[in-house]
């Protein structure tokens, strides 16, 4: 009798944590991206999601490789550098019961992909969009990306002379309906935010500082573990409560709590840390980001959410049967229809 088997726990979908795993990672040991993959696994496990109900997408980069390191039983498509958003947009029309989960890097999103990223957000296509943000191009060996810290010095690259692109601010400017920031060194928060994002019915952008241990992890560099650990400034503590659970989170004292109800019935619980922060106020979100940029604060948490905004799928009156399962009879009009049209052209 195998002891390991006996104690292996299953979630209410009847699946073990291993059912959410992927190939073993070929990223560097200690890479922030690996810990994010783990949190994706945990989030999906804890949410009792069925892997076949998730579709993974990515661009190109170390970050974009990671979708093979989780959810091996989910479909996925590794697209082109910076152009995952368009591919995901097309694919997600095929079966709207699937949850889209996109992984990108800072180079992938903020350099080559800035346009597609912003237009995805603008259309509010329902999917989770995670940026594994390390301020460099990892896979091509450590050049500056557009999120690289101003003044950062790197081997062979010299000094970065431009101000960084702020992914969260870009998302907000594009009218994003869910914007969060987190830090790969804070797995609990990463996980809760991913859970909330998976319940959001629109584009959920999560900018996760994810250190590149090989090319950008110097003491006190903005995207390093040490800096993140020392400077993370959570806006609140985040806890996600799925729709069917009753809210009985022990740690949480309802007095200090802000609750955001998502469209699918679930709730994001935000526990006050320092000051009051209201993530449903777009202007406040803009303001806190402007302050954070100015003062080099690594604020983390849920920066903005509008659970009720219309999304791209709402713009189409789609049938219940997924489009990709429609029988051929449903997609070819009749002979009579053609004959009528022909008449119009005489």
């Amino acid at each position, binding site marked *: 009798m195998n002891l390991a088997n006996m104690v292996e726990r299953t979630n209410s979908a009847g699946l073990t944590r291993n059912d959410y795993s992927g*190939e073993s990672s070929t990223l560097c040991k200690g890479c922030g991206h690996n810990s994010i993959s783990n949190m994706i696994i945990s989030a999906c496990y804890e949410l009792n999601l*069925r*892997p*076949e109900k998730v*579709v*993974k997408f990515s661009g190109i980069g170390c970050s974009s490789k990671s*979708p*093979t390191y989780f959810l*091996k*039983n*989910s*479909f*996925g*498509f*590794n*697209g*082109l550098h910076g*152009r*995952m*958003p*368009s*591919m*995901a*947009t*097309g*694919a*997600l*029309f*095929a*079966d709207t*019961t*699937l949850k889209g989960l996109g992984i990108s890097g800072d180079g992938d999103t903020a350099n080559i992909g800035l*346009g*597609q990223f912003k*237009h995805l957000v603008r259309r509010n296509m329902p999917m989770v969009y995670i940026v594994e943000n390390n301020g460099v191009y990892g896979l091509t060996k450590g050049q500056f990306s557009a999120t690289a810290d101003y003044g950062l010095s790197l081997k062979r690259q010299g000094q970065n002379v431009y101000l960084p692109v702020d992914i969260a601010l870009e998302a907000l400017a594009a009218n994003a309906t869910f914007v969060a920031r987190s830090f790969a060194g804070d797995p609990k928060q990463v996980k809760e935010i991913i859970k909330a994002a998976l319940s959001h019915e629109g584009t959920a952008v999560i900018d996760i500082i994810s250190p590149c241990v090989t090319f950008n992890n110097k003491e006190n560099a903005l995207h390093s573990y040490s800096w993140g650990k020392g400077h993370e400034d959570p806006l609140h503590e985040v806890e996600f409560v799925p729709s069917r659970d009753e809210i009985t989170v022990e740690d949480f004292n309802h007095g200090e709590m802000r609750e955001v109800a998502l469209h699918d019935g679930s709730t994001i619980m935000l526990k006050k840390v320092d000051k009051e922060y209201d993530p449903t106020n777009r202007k406040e979100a803009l303001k806190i980001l402007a302050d954070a940029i100015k003062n080099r604060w690594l604020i983390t948490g849920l920066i903005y959410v509008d659970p009720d905004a219309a999304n791209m799928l709402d713009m*189409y*009156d*789609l*049938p*219940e049967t*997924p*489009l*990709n*399962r*429609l029988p*051929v009879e*449903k*997609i*070819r*009009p009749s*002979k009579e*229809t*053609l004959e009528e*049209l*022909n008449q119009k*052209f*005489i």
Partner: protein
Amino acid sequence: MQKKLNEFSILVSTVNGSGSATANNALMKAIFKMGIPISARNIFPSNIQGLPTWYSLRVSEKRHLARVDEFDILINLDKVVLADDLKKVKKGGLVLCDQPLAPELVEQFHGMQLPIQEVLEKAESPANLNVYLMNMVYVGVLAALIKIDISLIEETINQHFSHVEKAVKPNMDVVKIAYGMVTNEMTEACPFELEKRNLNEGYIVTDGNQAAALGALFGGLQFSAWYPITPATELAECLNEYNPQIRNDPETGKATCVIVQAEDELAAIGMTIGAGWAGLRSMTSTSGPGLCLMAEYIGLAYQSEVPVVIWDVQRVGPSTGMPTRTSQGDLTFSYFLSHGDTDYVILFPGNVQECFEFGWRALDIAEHIQSPVIVLSDLDLGMNNWMTPKFQYPDLPIQRGKILWEEDIEQILKKNNGKWGRYTDLDGDGITYRTLPGNTNPRAAYFARGTGHDEFANYTEEPDVWKNEHDRIKKKFKKALEIDPHPILERNYHGKIGFISYGSSHYGTEEASDLLNAEGKAVDYLRIRSIPFQTEVNEFLQAHERVYVVEANRDGQMAQILMLNFPELAGKIHKIAYLDGLSLTAQSIITCFDDQEKK
């Protein structure tokens, strides 16, 4: 001068944005309804309003529908270009314009001043409409001169204004007054005349873009992302127009096809490929500049074996080139599209009917071989109104290719002892079985990618795996031949010399072949409709001593592709390639042919 009956050509020059399209269309449609074959071409500038625009009509009982560059009749409403226009009129031709003909021209042409002011005054139409209505004057005048049945003009105008009925009367008033005026005052018969025939039975009038859009909608199109670009825009706009009409489920009213205007072509192709991968029949439409931006994504679709249709309505390149002029210049670029070794099925609709047909067939082929299919249409076909046989309902049920749903996988696994992956070549034809997102069979999911992968879609850099995968992929294009359209032997005069042509160059080539035959030079003519080449192409090359490939580009792009496909026969292949932005005339083809034959 002999009277020309049902065999002459007309040039109308106006200013764009002035509404002359309604007038020109009325002429064309009315003649069509008289049962006489006719073709029409719009030569317009790349701006919105205020520059010269030409419209040419050719009526031809003999069914020669190619462009001509000498005209029998000129209608000129744009003085700026009158002098140039007159150079295009044959001696003895008829010139109608807004002013009296200069004395020195009166000998060369039959001239007549259009009674625009007079008619408009008589019609008492609101002054603000005059700028539009003035075009109707030449409709009435011409109808009287060449004997267009005025009731058919009325029919056409009624159709045209079916949504704004009140517009019919003012327009028809002008036509009728002008018609009456000329009929009354005519002293001698016009040298060009029409007589009803019954040659257009079963024909309709529409353009290639509209036909393509409808063809795709009848082909079960489910997703199309696009970005505006002349001359392809109208295709997508027709999708938008007809999709709700004919593709909302009659039972539930729900949409079965999704059209998205993307932010650019990088995104349009990305969306289309994403949809194709996920199991939607999908197509994008664009023109040359857009195709450039799609190059990398199309390579990904080739490599990851995603079915997708790219409909390129060609205009003149390179670069922005002449956006409102026609060409067949994107062929070699398409053939070798994307870095690395690739192959594509390329289709060449040669008329509007085929735009419809390839609209649905391309989707079948793409799903059959799980690879991008490129359709090369062009501005001449796409944006001009053509008479064309009625659209034929597809003669094949929708072909979705090898798709496995939940139970199918079980069966496949059973048959193959559990050994099956996304890229396993079970049938030995290179085409493997694909699954679609949403499939809940635990074996269904795979991770698609543009990188090297094994038969289970796993990443690998193994040299042999790469080579084998790509040898397999190449096989699929043999398989495509089973479903691709065959070439058509358009003329068989049993000559030793042949023409090969394709797409809209068909019309000039067909006529050239006929004219040469009339001169005693038998030149056969094969029209190619697809790449990879069907065996008939090889046979045609074998069977002729010299073959001239006729096309509207500078470098002889189809000739080049034939040469590299048939190196043993390449010496026989000659080029008749010409690009100036206008479709080829029979005369230019003959000149070029004769020049080379002399050598």
